């Protein structure tokens, strides 16, 4: 009837993750599609690249160095030890040396040396480089082959965080009118409709009605997903993919059943209908703050006591790490609760207190594994104790399913690989970057499938879910193996 549109080059899976022999420029051809002018304006950036961009770029670079001490230090302290070189999934997958973290940093560092160090003028001596169109082109290519996952920083003896450098580079590019379409369009939609997808209130209500009907049919219970209800105890903020895509919507059903069974009143918001914060991906403090503000403005307006975030990796980082300094303090909320709370922490607490009961045998058809999302594993914490972000999701999985298998040691918890689609790389046009970046994780999935019969990969990030739903079939696995922890909860909860 119809034929598949594209063919991709897909690595063969044999369970191994070898260090590739470098191929200079192997992925130099990959590019994000340029931003639309109206989106750039809406975000407060110049609509397009204009005369005088070079001076402007160096000016913004200087501002970053003056205000972000971490970035300034990262420019100076690398000793070229090479510990990071084979730690990036995009280097392992592409073999392009510019995807080695040290080389990715060097793209910016050589420009730093030229403009901001005394010996910079002597190019050969200091290995410095003026910001030319050619250099800018490299930035646009390779700072969009980094998912800001921070795996490399874990192995760097100096703790240099390439994600901060990538964010700085992206911010400099946006500030001179060189933006990309994917994230700028998404942020513009948040400003227009409250969420990344562009779901207006009427459509959101219709979707929730359909979902309520489905839950009624399945469980025989009158499970509701209230919207814009003033005076509810909890404001629930899921990533908007939970309102739209699969398997994400299965987790939304899980959250709804938990609230129903626990008898805790809650509401979603049509104004803050997005947990995600793409402003952070762009390294744009102003936009990140503006997006984050919507959640707290509506929490205040709806007079809720607490805010709970759904299954979304970078949303949790943005909410947990940055909310308080960006838009806090949240003294209008109930101080009994953590602000904000992760949905896994909330649900596991209810299970432990005996408020809700899970029957793990409901998931006996599944052998479950867990993919730690980088933004939660390496950039934040869940719960009240060190390592809670590793323990709490696993405990919740084990409460909801009997068969659980860990992925390969050295690729879990803080050492997790990125799914290959984070940091705004989830765009169609860079599919080959996404396939290459997913390779290391897919090798470990292959191993888990072959040796342990794993048939369900639980995630707590909307990006991981979308990326894997695309990658699993490309690599020869069933897309339905991918799902959320609250999808397991949804199956297992005794109603």
């Amino acid at each position, binding site marked *: *009837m*119809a*034929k*598949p*549109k594209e063919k991709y080059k897909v690595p063969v899976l044999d369970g191994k993750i070898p260090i590739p022999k470098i191929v200079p420029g192997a992925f130099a051809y990959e590019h994000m*599609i340029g931003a639309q002018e109206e989106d750039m304006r809406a975000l407060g950036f110049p609509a397009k690249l204009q005369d005088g961009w070079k001076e402007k770029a160096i000016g913004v670079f200087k501002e970053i160095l003056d205000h972000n001490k971490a970035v300034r230090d990262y420019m100076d302290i690398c000793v070229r030890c090479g510990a990071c070189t084979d730690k990036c999934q995009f280097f392992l997958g592409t073999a392009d040396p510019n995807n080695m973290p040290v080389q990715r940093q060097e793209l910016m560092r050589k420009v730093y040396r030229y403009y901001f160090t005394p010996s910079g003028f002597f190019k050969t001596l200091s290995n410095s480089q003026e910001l030319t169109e050619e250099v800018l082109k490299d930035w646009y290519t390779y700072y969009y082959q980094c998912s800001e996952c921070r795996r490399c920083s874990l192995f760097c003896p100096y703790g240099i965080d390439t994600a901060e450098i990538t964010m700085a580079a992206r911010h400099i590019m946006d500030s001179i009118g060189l933006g990309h*379409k*994917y994230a700028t*369009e*998404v942020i513009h*939609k948040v400003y227009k*409709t409250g*969420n*990344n*997808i*562009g*779901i*207006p209130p*009427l*459509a959101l209500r*219709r*979707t929730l009605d*359909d*979902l309520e*009907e*489905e839950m009624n049919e399945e469980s025989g219970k009158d499970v509701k997903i209230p919207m814009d209800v003033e005076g509810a105890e909890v404001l629930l903020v899921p*990533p*908007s*993919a939970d*309102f*739209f*895509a*699969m398997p*994400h*919507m299965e987790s939304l059903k899980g959250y709804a059943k938990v609230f129903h069974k626990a008898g805790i009143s809650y509401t979603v918001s049509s104004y803050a209908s997005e947990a*995600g914060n793409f402003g952070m991906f762009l390294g744009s403090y102003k936009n990140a703050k503006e997006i984050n503000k919507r959640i707290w403005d509506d929490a205040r307006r709806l007079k809720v006591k607490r805010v709970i975030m759904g299954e*979304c990796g970078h949303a949790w980082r943005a909410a947990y790490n940055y909310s308080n300094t960006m838009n806090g303090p949240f003294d209008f909320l109930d101080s009994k609760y953590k602000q904000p709370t992760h949905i896994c922490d909330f649900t596991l607490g209810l299970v432990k207190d005996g408020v809700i009961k899970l029957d793990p045998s409901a998931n006996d058809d599944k052998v479950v594994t867990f993919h730690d999302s980088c933004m939660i594993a390496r950039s934040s914490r869940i719960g009240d104790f060190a390592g809670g972000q590793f323990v709490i999701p696993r405990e919740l999985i084990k409460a909801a399913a009997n068969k659980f298998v860990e992925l390969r040691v050295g690729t879990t918890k803080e050492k997790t690989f990125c799914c290959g689609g984070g940091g705004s790389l*989830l765009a*169609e*046009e860079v599919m080959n970057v996404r396939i290459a970046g997913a390779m290391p994780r897919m090798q470990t999935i292959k191993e888990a499938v072959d040796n342990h019969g794993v048939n369900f990969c639980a995630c707590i990030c*909307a*990006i991981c*879910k*979308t990326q894997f739903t695309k990658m699993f079939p490309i690599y020869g696995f069933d897309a339905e193996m991918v799902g959320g922890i609250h999808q397991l909860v949804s199956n297992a909860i005794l109603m």
Partner: protein
Amino acid sequence: MASFDYNGKTIETDDEGYLQNLVDWDKGLAEVLAEQEGVELTDKHWKLIEWIRDYFQKYQVAPAIKSLAREVMKLENLPDKKEANRFVYELFPEGPAKQLAKIAGLPKPTGCV
């Protein structure tokens, strides 16, 4: 931005082939867009295209995947959503969000989808 000629008119699309001006859409143009996607339109395709366009007109966004599946269950008398999803992917192999939306003249879905 890209463009192509259709019935003596220049049709503008974005870089991924989605119509820039949604009012350009008509049934003949849908055939052209489908051909670009390698999809041959049958009555079953048309039923979904018409439903999704009505939905978009009312709600200003494409339907959630479960809402689409519900509709397909009704239209095609299928037993469950799994069957309905399989049916949709058989018609539009690249998926409803991407391929069905494009051929129906809707904008590209954005975000983590």
